[in-house]
């Protein structure tokens, strides 16, 4: 519970403070980069889980994450190509990636049931944090209608994943 909460707060504050530090709302190329990065992070975490998870439901969940996030990111890439937008790296993306790398290293040290629990706790917290950022910052800031619509689909996918992660986590106890 502590790990889950602290991870959520850390991720949220990174998203919040990085965007605030810029002093302005993120631009569409930045939003596209942040959303894509958020997907890449979850795919990396899932690939680690496919290798390490002991529980078959946890492994299956990780496979679902890879499948869905790859599908979302493919749509994102198709859209930026169509709109002729080049995703732009930014402080929020950098902060997210840095935190994710640390989390991956932390999870790498765990084994068996302990790992399974920690992975799912982080998935719940991470999806919750990204959902918050999508709802309060990224979606309201997006100016292109198609980008906004893709982010809204992304939000529903992420909300679904959060609930799915909570259900799998509940079964582990």
């Amino acid at each position, binding site marked *: 519970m502590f790990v889950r909460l602290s991870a959520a707060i850390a991720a949220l504050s990174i998203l919040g403070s990085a965007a605030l530090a810029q002093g302005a709302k993120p631009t569409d190329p930045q939003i596209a980069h942040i959303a894509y990065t958020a997907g890449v992070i979850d795919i990396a975490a899932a690939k680690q889980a496919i290798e390490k998870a002991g529980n078959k439901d946890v492994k299956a969940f990780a496979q679902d994450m890879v*499948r869905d996030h790859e*599908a979302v990111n*493919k749509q994102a890439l198709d859209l930026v190509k169509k709109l002729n937008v080049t995703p732009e790296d930014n402080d929020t993306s950098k902060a997210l990636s840095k935190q994710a790398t640390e989390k991956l290293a932390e999870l790498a040290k765990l084994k068996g049931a302990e790992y399974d629990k920690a992975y799912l706790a982080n998935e719940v917290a991470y999806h919750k944090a990204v959902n918050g950022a999508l709802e309060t910052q990224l979606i309201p800031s997006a100016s292109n209608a198609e980008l906004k619509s893709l982010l809204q*689909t992304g939000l529903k*996918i992420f909300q*679904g*994943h959060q609930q*799915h992660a909570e259900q799998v986590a509940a079964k582990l106890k």
Partner: protein
Amino acid sequence: MRPGRYRLAMAALLFSMMAVPAQAATIQIATTDLVFAPAEVSAKVGDTIEWINTDVFVHTATARNGDFDVNMPPKKTVTSVLTKAGTVEYYCRYHPNMKAVLTITP
């Protein structure tokens, strides 16, 4: 000979009408942007549901009471026949925030 043949034809026609009492319907339910639409559908036992997944994601239509569990591959349409009556709440196993209801009458 002629009236007899006529009677036979009538009998055959009547018989065939009795053998197929009510035609089973085909009902479409789509998943678009992670939403089942329509969210509430009424159907009869024997009806076919055409599950149209317009999303690029895999979905499922999974009955909470276990009556059915349909896998819906991305950008594909699959069909299933309703075999049991009841008011069935169903959801997507991969995205449990997707929920809908099927009311199936006998």
